[in-house]
């Protein structure tokens, strides 16, 4: 088999953006369903909120916050590429988007526990 270059940093940044977007798209209907319980079935919502006290759920929530932050800062990076004058520091921006996302997610986790 012929081998070809793989694993460029900005390709990985693009894949992270795509992956986080798909997972968030799957998550959002569940999120809205749970929010909808506030109107339709308050008791069931309370039951669910107690379940969110579990450590494993808090970790999962931090993961969701991470995905949300990755998608948002990754999206801002793309908007900067496409709508602002060109900057040569593309890999720095991608690394910054990922670093800020982890900072946001870790901050969320620390405040939740």
């Amino acid at each position: 088999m012929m081998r070809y270059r793989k694993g460029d940093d900005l390709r990985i940044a693009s894949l992270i953006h795509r992956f986080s977007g798909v997972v968030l798209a799957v998550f959002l209907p569940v999120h809205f369903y749970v929010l909808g319980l506030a109107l339709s079935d308050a008791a069931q919502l309370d039951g669910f909120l107690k379940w969110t006290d579990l450590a494993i759920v808090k970790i999962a929530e931090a993961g969701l916050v991470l995905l949300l932050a990755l998608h948002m800062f990754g999206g801002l990076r793309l908007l900067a590429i496409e709508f602002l004058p060109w900057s040569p520091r593309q890999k720095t921006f991608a690394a910054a988007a990922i670093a800020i996302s982890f900072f946001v997610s870790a901050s969320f986790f620390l405040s939740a526990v």
Partner: protein
Amino acid sequence: MENINRKLKVRVWRGTQGDGTFSTYEVPAQESQTILDVVTWIQQYAEPTLAYRFACRVGMCGSCAMNVNGIPRWTCRTHVQKVLEDGELEIAPLRNLPVVKDLVTDMSEFFDKWVGAEGRFHPSATRDDEIAAISPADPKRANANAAIECINCAVCYSACDTIAQNPAYFGPAALNRAWTLQNDERDTAFKSRLETISGRGGCTNCHSHQSCMTYCPNELNPTESIAGLKRMTTRSFLFGGR
């Protein structure tokens, strides 16, 4: 000739797209040797039926691009010493193009897309008219100048992950060419070209992996050109006109 007795181990793709394999050759190492020198040595002394393509040998014609150790390069100006991995080379045809034989790809689709993205110049004057006066300091001319030195070697086309996933995509070279024409005051096809390059296979397919920019041997930045086309597309969608 410091490396006169040293041999390079070179794996070269023999065959067509789906039906082929790598053959290994031992090639004498020489000072300032290029990848094209290596391929030529193999054809001259070891494998007369090896098919490859080149013309100018000085980085102007864009015909000798190949994949070297997995990276698309212009072979006539790529020094062996700079790309050697553990004394070995792997030379394969460009990705994203059909292989005719060995290291020769069929470039038809590359040039068809170049034309498909309205890469042709549509003049606004005839040879009998006065030459248009365009200042080199004009921002649009500066945009065109920054992207104009493309030699159509298809290195960017081979490097592009988007084409690998979406064969309808015009690719970096064709869109880079369209960008130069969209910034050319003398061209008359701005609107029809914008329709084309914002449609199917157009600039909005680009995921900005920036491999085209990373590997362009002439150090052009097709990603920046494509980003410019995206801005033009958005401006046209929101406000219409030029």
